[in-house]
């Protein structure tokens, strides 16, 4: 437990002693802020039009701020996460492999699991901070409109789970290589495939199609953004995270049998 805490603290320290965390968080906020502005501005124009145009005013769904701003906003944030999280995770093992510090770290009396979890939670903390700062957008919505509280909260739960899943995959790809660019490219590529799997369901039969929907990352955020907490979604993320942490553990252990 103490080793886990020490490693997590050390990793957090190196995120913030270099510009990495600041740059990633800033770009994340700039892009998500831009999306939020667009969604919010079009919603307010739509509202003005509805006051004079009864045809628009009759479309109740469009004038629901939760439907037209909150839900798409969570979708947009998840896309930007897809771009930014690999940049947070890529250094976790690659850097240690390149500089050789992994040799010292793994000859200290720590278990591989403590090392992985320490790094995982350090990265998760940076991610949570990043996500916390986006809370200004829903706060603004509450100031100027009346969105439902439920979907905003569950949406964030969904984003946290999704972020943790992204991080677990990122740690895995980082453990595979000593090159940070390869680590980032691999995790971005794999995440993107998981994200986009849903696109090909129209080409498949019902069984395979449903399977693809279930495996696809994006489908599991929908429910949360609507205000629904489905155990299937939680299990999906839990399995995803456990799988990649387990695979990372295997990669670290593989040095024991690889010639």
């Amino acid at each position, binding site marked *: 437990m103490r080793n886990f805490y020490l490693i997590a603290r050390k990793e957090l320290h190196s995120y913030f002693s270099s510009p990495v965390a600041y740059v990633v968080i800033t770009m994340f906020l700039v892009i998500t802020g831009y999306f939020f502005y667009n969604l919010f501005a079009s919603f307010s124009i739509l509202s003005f039009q509805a006051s004079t145009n009864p045809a628009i005013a009759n479309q109740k769904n469009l004038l629901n701020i939760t439907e037209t701003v909150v839900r798409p906003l969570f979708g947009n944030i998840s896309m930007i996460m897809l771009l930014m999280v690999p940049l947070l995770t890529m250094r976790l093992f690659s850097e240690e492999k390149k500089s*050789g*510090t992994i040799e010292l770290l*793994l000859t200290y*009396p720590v278990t591989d699991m403590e090392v992985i979890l320490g790094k995982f939670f350090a990265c998760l903390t940076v991610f949570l901070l990043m996500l916390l700062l986006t809370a200004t957008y829903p706060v603004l919505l509450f100031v100027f409109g009346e969105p439902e509280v439920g979907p905003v909260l569950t949406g964030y739960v969904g984003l946290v789970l999704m972020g943790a899943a992204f991080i677990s995959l990122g740690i895995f790809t980082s453990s595979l290589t000593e090159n940070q660019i390869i680590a980032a490219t691999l995790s971005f590529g794999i995440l993107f495939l998981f994200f986009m799997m849903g696109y090909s369901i129209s080409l498949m039969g019902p069984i395979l199609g449903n399977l693809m929907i279930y495996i696809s990352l994006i489908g599991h955020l929908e429910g949360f953004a609507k205000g629904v907490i489905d155990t299937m979604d939680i299990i999906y993320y839990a399995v995803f995270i456990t799988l990649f942490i387990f695979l990372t553990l295997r990669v670290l252990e593989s040095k024991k049998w690889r010639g």
Partner: protein
Amino acid sequence: MIQVEKLTKSYGNYQALKEITFSVEKGEILGFLGPNGAGKTTTMRILTCFFPATSGKATVAGFDVFEEPHEVRKRIGYLPESVPLYRDMVVTDYLSFVAGIKGVAGREVKKRVDVVMDECGLTHMSHKLISELSKGYRQRVGLAQALVNEPEVLILDEPTAGLDPKQIIDIRKLIKGLAGKRTIILSTHILPEVSMTCQRVIIINEGKVIAVDTPQNLTSNIQGAGRIAVKVDGPWQEVVKGLSGISGISRVDRKEGGSGISEFIIDTAKGLDVRKDIAPLIVKNGWGLLELKPVEMSLEDIFVKLVTKE
């Protein structure tokens, strides 16, 4: 303290270590000598549980390296050759992190860190970033992190590589100062280092142990015959004739000579000191004896001899 038996390590088809066997007593400094790629680092990585051997057995402080790596790791301090440190950390923070992770109790950490910084001459650098330190100081930080938990066994991979002569002397002094209290394995390919710091030497080449002994014994055993250098002021042909007449001298070589003064190299039978016969001979003939000294083979010569013999 350290027992290594028939340790073998293969990388694919390449055998880096071939049935290495040796042991190190408690409190001893053992020099690990060998050319580049001989298997020094591989042996050290096995002993520090970084990776296991393909076959064979190794125990450190009574714990098997393969069965109980956690217990072994608690008892060793390791300095890898490349001195990998977290360069974005301040010296004290880094050493406190290592102390904590090596199991130094929370309230002891600060005290231990202060002690090792003092031992390694780092106190005035304590608040610098490691990336700002010179190579010599980084080496000291590396040594400090190895020492911070007061390990019973220290494994140092080329601790003086890349340092300036003054720093080399400082580091050697530091290592020598630790002898007795701790068991130390030290690898190097610089020979004088071994004769200066180590009580025992293992020479390995191409993954095999080719000699294990004290530096002094290695010198005298390998040397075989004795060798003496004499500088004489006198007619060299006569001197050679005179010297060759002494019993026990097998060969006389005139190395160089100018006007009257010549240097001779004399080979003698093993274990026979003919110096006391040479001096009276020269004096009796009225030549001038300018120099008379035994020639010892340096470790360099022995090393080259052993390695090329293979």
